[in-house]
């Protein structure tokens, strides 16, 4: 969500999702996590947290994170897996997107999530062969799930987005320049050199 915020503030059209089955946050004890369905408003999540030991939630940053998320979007959403019931906000919440898969780029922050997304796209290729075959560039930027890493990781993601965006705009403005797709691997290499502690993954997927 930190990356969502940073990208949105930079002017990109962004949607964010979880890839698991539910939203899991640290609970009062290590064996009692707080589990919420996707679509549960962040305000309700905050209400639940307020009923628990606030010192713990303040100490582990969950309280601040939830408050931050309220300012970004109404509720957490689940990746629109093929053939599964939607667990996301209504389309009217995102008028700038034409449909649920209207993305040019997907960026995940854990390899597990990257695998889920790529497998979902491969599944679409298999189970829905009549699909339109629109390409989407998928990346994973491996970020440790804690507050400080999230802040620096979000900036690194913004760097990647800016590099891609600049190259893409240039290819649209100057039809004789090097094609965008030919630049992507060089952009990734350049980015990885600048961010050696954030291992990257990449794939083109189709839907």
């Amino acid at each position, binding site marked *: 969500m930190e990356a969502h915020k940073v990208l949105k503030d930079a002017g990109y059209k962004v949607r964010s999702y979880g890839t698991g089955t539910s939203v899991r946050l640290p609970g009062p004890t290590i064996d009692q996590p707080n589990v919420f369905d996707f679509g549960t408003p962040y305000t309700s999540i905050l209400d639940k947290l307020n009923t628990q030991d606030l010192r713990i939630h303040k100490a582990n940053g969950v309280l601040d994170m939830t408050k931050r998320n309220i300012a970004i979007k109404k509720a957490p959403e689940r990746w629109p897996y093929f053939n599964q019931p939607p667990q996301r906000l209504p389309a009217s919440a995102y008028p700038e997107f034409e449909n649920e898969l209207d993305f040019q780029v997907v960026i995940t922050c854990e390899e597990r999530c990257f695998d889920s997304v790529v497998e979902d796209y*491969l599944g679409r290729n298999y189970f829905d062969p009549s699909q339109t075959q629109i390409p989407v560039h998928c990346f994973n930027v491996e970020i440790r799930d804690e507050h400080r890493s999230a802040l620096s990781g979000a900036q690194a993601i913004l760097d990647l987005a800016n590099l891609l965006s600049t190259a893409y705009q240039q290819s649209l403005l100057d039809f004789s320049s090097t094609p965008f797709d030919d630049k992507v691997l060089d952009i990734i290499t350049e980015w990885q050199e600048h961010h050696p502690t954030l291992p990257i993954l990449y794939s083109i997927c189709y839907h």
Partner: protein
Amino acid sequence: MASEQDKNQIEQLQEAEKLAFDHPEFFEQVLDTTISICLATPLNDFKLQFQCLNFIYKAFHQKKIESSSIRIQQSAKLIDLLDYFIIRNEEKSPNYMIIQKCIDILTASYDLIFLNMINSPDESEWDRLTNIKEYLLSQLTSSYPLQPYNPESDLFRSIGCKNSIIKLTGKVIQVQLPSTSSSEKIEDDISVSMIGSTHPFLLNANLSSQAQNLLDSLFVLINEDIILPTGVFTTIMSTLMTLFKTRSKFVSNKFIMFVLAYESQLKLDPRFEKDQKLKMKLIKRFNDRIDKCLISFLLNKGFLAKDPGLKTRFENKFNYLVEKSRKQRQGGIIDVDIDDDDDEVKEIKRQKLEAIQQNDMMFYNESRIARSNDYKAIYTLIKPEDQLTGFEMSSIPVQILSSMVIAALSKVTTPKLIKGLNIVSDRYKELTSNTDSAFEGEYLPADKNLKRKREDNDDDDGQAHSRVKYEGENGGGNDVDGINDDDELKGEFVVPLPDEFSISRKKDQLKLIIDNFINLSAKKIKQSKSSSDNAGQQQMALQRVAIPNWDKDSWIKLLSRLATRGLGNKDLSDCVRETLFNYLKDDVKNRIDGVIEWLNEEYFSEIQAKSEPIPSPDGYYMKYAGYFLDNLIPFLESADRKIFIRLLSELPYLQNTLIWKIKSLCKDPVRSKLGFQSLLYLIMFRPPVVKDCLDLIKEMHDDPSSDDALQQECSNYLKKYSPK
């Protein structure tokens, strides 16, 4: 820079696009119009073409026209468009994005056109479609539409178009192999199974055989010894995934075995990319990850459940890839010096490398077409980024240079040398014979030359002239090097007329010319001063020509004449006027000569076609005279009296709207004197405007907002020049 006209056209196309998508009943009409606009647009007007193709792409590829029957019905119309861009204009440097859109459109419409051909056979259209399809499919491993370098490097170039061609290959395989499914929607699974046995030209066996070969070619590509870039690799996997479902009988075994056997470590780096170690390491990591995702998909979705042995092999491979990825991360992603290969891998790679090196005949730039019309482009075989390309060979002494050449010749193998020389030779031939280049032209028959020559002689009053030798009656006596004998027999070589520019390109070019004029004017030009000896001669010249001596402002005369009389096109003239005005207004006081020069030209140009010498109130003279006064008056100071009065005296025409602009000067207490001096000058020396000046003074006099001093001044003038 898109011109106004182009912008308007693009906006109109966007509106038509919206209409077609909102009301599909208009789609046919909009499609027909869009195709005709696209075909009529000059090849260099990419933006307009791109807009047209984007509409078709959205309709067919993104399926914004949801009705498959409408898309099927209209699909055959696309053949002409695709043929135009891909076949007919193949040699005219196709634009990358235009070609990519065309390939995507063909991918989206190939099955629809195929169905059309089954139901309403049209052999000539099918032949055209087959021609386009086969041409594109043959470019799978090339850098099309970019110019080629060498087979290995070209795998890493033009990735977007390559991916589109892979998707097209997948569609052709799907359509041309028999379907086994019974899909509810016809559109979802069009195939050769639908062809009737009596069809006049679609032969099931031939089409299936071609599809089988295409499928093999995809597997050959992914089994190449050279690592494939991730974009290409994943696109092939995605395509095979679809075929795995729709043409399972033909694909499943090969696909499953490939996924199991794929090992990026065994692949070689392209030989000219060896310096990009991190990039190659990342590509291998990415490709392995896709392989892992495929294995995971096959395991989780139960594809291997029936064969426990195979399932175990997949699980082992999965665990191996997980462990490999973990080790890689531990070692650090960007540390390219860590050797990931074990001894077995090294041995396999060594053998592959040896096999390749035995036949090492590759140059980086193997293009048979020179990239530009110069010798460097003809002879360069190395990488453009290679530092050697910038090295000045002429700085090396001849003896050392000779030794280097001899050493190189003795080292190179004969076949490689021949290959290099052939590439250079082919580039040279292509450049000199290319019909699209500046070398195109024709020889006028000799008798025409003679006729022309005689006419030239008559025109020149028999003056001797030393033009090229074909004109001479002395049989080539002036031919110094003797190389033009053949040309002489052929006649005069005439350079062809260039293609006509579109109006937007004309404006762009004109703007370049004007900007260049303006840049030149900033430079100091040594003014040619006439000596007293030729003063009389110059006086005569002045009566005949506009610019007897070139000075720094001569270009203003040129531009103003170009705007008023030289260009027969309003858009282009306006373009000159606008630039000229912007230049002059930046410093009106110091460029007052130019202002007067130009406005006089405008006035003269406007009144010469009229019966009376009064310019139109909406004409250019009045418009720009008003603009200049508006730009000058607010910045005038008392010291600028001479400049302003000179302007008023030399403007060829004044009337009340122009004179009324002096009002603000008169009402300004600090500059009031300057305003009244100007009016006084006009009253005394320009009788036609005396009444307008007095009217202005009277108005200021009667204006209640005027202060006492102003009213007193007005009153003095009125008493003197309008006592009644």
